[in-house]
């Protein structure tokens, strides 16, 4: 659907926005740098994890069970003697891909719903957005649990899709307001009196202008979804052991929190650092893109 020229234009658009100024601005925002650093750290871990991790994350060694952090096991071991450092490093992979998937899918659903509601307005808008309000009024974790509970054995994909649906009222609101901002601009009127179709007006004229707020919303969803996925893991719905999932790790070891606190603290710290990093960077993106 997107022609070569459109692609070129979108890329020029991005080049202009993510140019020298982006780095100039980033340099002046310490929280932004810190956030980007944390995110990049975990991205590196997830890509090069197998080379960095000293042990296999699933290899058991009962003789070494509950050993406290030492030079052999930097972050100690759990009750099966599995190396915590390796588990945390390898665990980053699943959480990052899940979070990325959720942010993309939820923004996509949001665009479809929000653009439809915003463009047609009137009764269509009312009905869709009130449905979204109902969905939003249910606590997101609860809603996700109920929906996951229906599925017999949820895999990574179903977790992604369900959390995306839970998030879609928020992304739909952002997409709708971004569309409304441009809907009454004169260039949209110009397209109308040229006789353009709905798809041309929405996706060629309006969509490229809404990319910035959608990226910001996507990155915020990314940060939130880490939290949600980890919480679901902790509650035991969603991913199943022995997957090295951070939330699952905390849940598995919560019984031995006094005996071997490192088994809980380090996965929890990993979750916190990634959530904080992603949030800080999302906040910076928001400030930067809103100004351009």
């Amino acid at each position, binding site marked *: 659907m997107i022609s070569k020229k459109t692609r070129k234009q979108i890329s*020029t*658009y991005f080049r202009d926005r993510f140019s020298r*100024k982006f780095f*100039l601005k980033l340099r002046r925002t310490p929280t932004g740098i810190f956030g980007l650093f944390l995110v990049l750290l975990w991205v590196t871990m997830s890509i090069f994890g197998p080379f960095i991790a000293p042990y296999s994350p699933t290899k058991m060694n009962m003789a070494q069970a509950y050993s406290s952090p030492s030079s052999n096991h930097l972050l100690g071991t759990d009750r099966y003697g599995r190396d915590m450092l390796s588990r945390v490093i390898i665990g980053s992979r699943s959480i990052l891909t899940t979070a990325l998937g959720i942010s993309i899918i939820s923004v996509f659903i949001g665009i479809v719903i929000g653009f439809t509601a915003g463009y047609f307005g009137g009764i269509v808008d009312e009905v869709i957005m009130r449905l979204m309000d109902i969905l939003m009024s249910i606590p997101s974790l609860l809603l996700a649990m109920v929906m996951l509970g229906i599925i017999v054995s949820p895999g990574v994909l179903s977790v992604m899709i369900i959390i995306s649906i839970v998030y879609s009222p928020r992304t739909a609101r952002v997409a709708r307001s971004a569309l409304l901002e441009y809907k009454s601009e004169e260039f949209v009127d110009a397209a109308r009196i*040229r*006789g*353009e179709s709905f798809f041309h007006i929405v996706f060629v*004229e309006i969509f490229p*202008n809404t990319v910035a707020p959608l990226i910001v919303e996507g990155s915020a969803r990314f940060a939130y979804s880490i939290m949600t996925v980890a919480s679901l893991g902790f509650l035991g719905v969603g991913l199943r052991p022995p997957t090295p999932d951070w939330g699952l790790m905390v849940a598995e070891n919560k019984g031995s929190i006094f005996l071997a606190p490192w088994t809980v603290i380090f996965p929890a710290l990993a979750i916190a650092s990634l959530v904080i990093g992603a949030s800080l960077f999302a906040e910076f993106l928001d400030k930067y893109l809103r100004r351009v």
Partner: protein
Amino acid sequence: MNSNRRIKQENQPLVEVKDLSVHYSTLDRELGALRNINLSVYPQETYGLVGESGCGKSTLAFSIMNYLGENGFVAGGEIIFSGQVLTEKSEKEFRAIQSENISMVYQNPSSALNPVLKIGEQIAEIKHIRKELSREQSWNKAVEILESMNIPDAANVASRYPHQLSGGMKQRVCIGMALMSEPSLLIMDEPTTNLDVTTEQVILDLIQGLKEKYKVAIVYISHDLGVVMEIADRIGIMYLGKLVEEGSKEDIGLRPIHPYTRGLISCVPEIGIAKEDTRLKSIPGSVPSLTEIPPGCVFNSRCSFSESRCLQDEPHLVNYENDRMVACWKAHQIEEKEKPPKQDSDAESKRKREAISRNGKVLLELEDLKKYFKNGHTVKAVDGVSMHLLTANTLGVVGESGCGKTTMARTIIGLLEPTGGTIFFDGIDISRPWYKRNKETLNRMQMVFQDPESTLNPAHSVRKIVGRTLILKEGISGSELEKRILELLQKVNLGSEFMDRMPFQMSGGQKQRVSIARAFAANPDLVICDEPTSSLDVSVQSSVLNLLLDLQRDTDTSYLFISHDLNVVHYLSDYIAVTYLGKICEVGEKEQIFQPPYHPYTEALISAVPVPNPNVKQRHIKLKGSTPSAINPPSGCRFHTRCPRKLGSICETQKPPSIAVTESHLIKCHIPLEELAKVEPVVKVG
């Protein structure tokens, strides 16, 4: 002028700005917004500061007010206020002096007033916060000041909230508020720019009167030389952060010296000048941004007198003659050349026009067109408009804001669905919205929009914006498309380098040219222009108007030209329709509109047009109040609430009849034609 000299000789200047430079720091560099400004304002004089947007007028005002914002700072020079060097004072001392002596009136009265406080409270608090007067005394003082602003029923207005007042009324409140602290200097930053012309005239009259009464000096900032001419004693012209010329209003108006001043004066269509008489002068290019200030004289890139010296050395403001300062190396040579004689009338276009009006065929015809908006109550934005437009002709539609001009344009083009009446385009009934019209009709009718910031898609390049219509209409692609786009850009005087520019890389004038190219890509028969130049700087406006004229001459396109600016409409149009509150009150050939008999509203409009020429005598007509709301329009003749020539109850109860002055000239008024014909012309030259 003599009185002005006397003031100067007897007094020390009230404010003296010496060699002032103000910089703004941005992400990657410092921008010099003001560079080495020298000027003095004497007690009780009005000093007009004129320049286009981005020339530093407001920055100068804000540096006197010490309101430069987070990233602005005084980089050099000093501001002296009645002997005290403000720039050397601490923040606290500066503020103390300033709050006692200097007040400011801003451009937008709606955001200058606090929406949750009553008008009276806002004004009164100035006195009682400083404990000068008790709460009650200061309230009384506030009412008193409102009365002196010619606000009827001031006591009642004082207990109202800002949203209950009209724009002109709010601006009067702001002026009153500024005068409450009895300042010796009043700075006004474009105080009438957001107001309609008839309201503007009332405010200007008010300011004139206040000067006498309150004995304040006024610094009046505006982009409109005509307005400043009316009100100022001395005028300073600013360009790119420099003062380029300063002199009395007579000197500036009649003998401008600096090429920029000359350009500013000659690029505004003078009252009574039409396209057949002369081509508008324009200043080439547009005001450069602060990041690309040219070396040497700041104006060199746009100056026709520029020579090698101008490119290297920066001219400073020097005494040219008594009370006259000019910053130009070639001032003396320019002065010797008399004002270039006005060009001969364009005989060819005149003949062409006559031929068309004789055998012209009707292209667009509106019959009792109505557009109502229903939102709880009915807003009758367009209420029974009938008029027609001939091929290769221009019909100008003029009226103040809220008269339904834009709604009418949007209904004709199909963006809105008409509530009643018919639109005939080339004989075909097209009274339906765009999605129910056929492709051919859509192509034959194009529109040029008002706001250059919103008319082009910020995410699309010029190639795509202009090319899209060609692709849709002719289905061409590749090198042929490329060739056609280039041709169109050439037509609107843009080079091939604009092909891949994005809208944010262009100035307002360039964007409007692209928008015109987009309209002409479809080879239309009718182009609806909705205030296409009203957000452009005056020097750019004239080149866009010239472009529209050239295109019309080449392609025989008809224009429906909508504007609030009577001079522009008169210059460009063949026929003019004057609208008031959704109805047409007068329509005719443009010469007929500008000569008696007038409709009383047309008369008032013409009298309110600012004229930057001290030789032109203009009779000012003050209209009462402001345009009533279209939700509940006055009965009978809609203009009766403000009409200075109202006959009596007949105007309130009966719709005015159409008086046919000639076959093409209609006036809707109860006053008999003989009476209207006796009215003296509003404008006299000489």
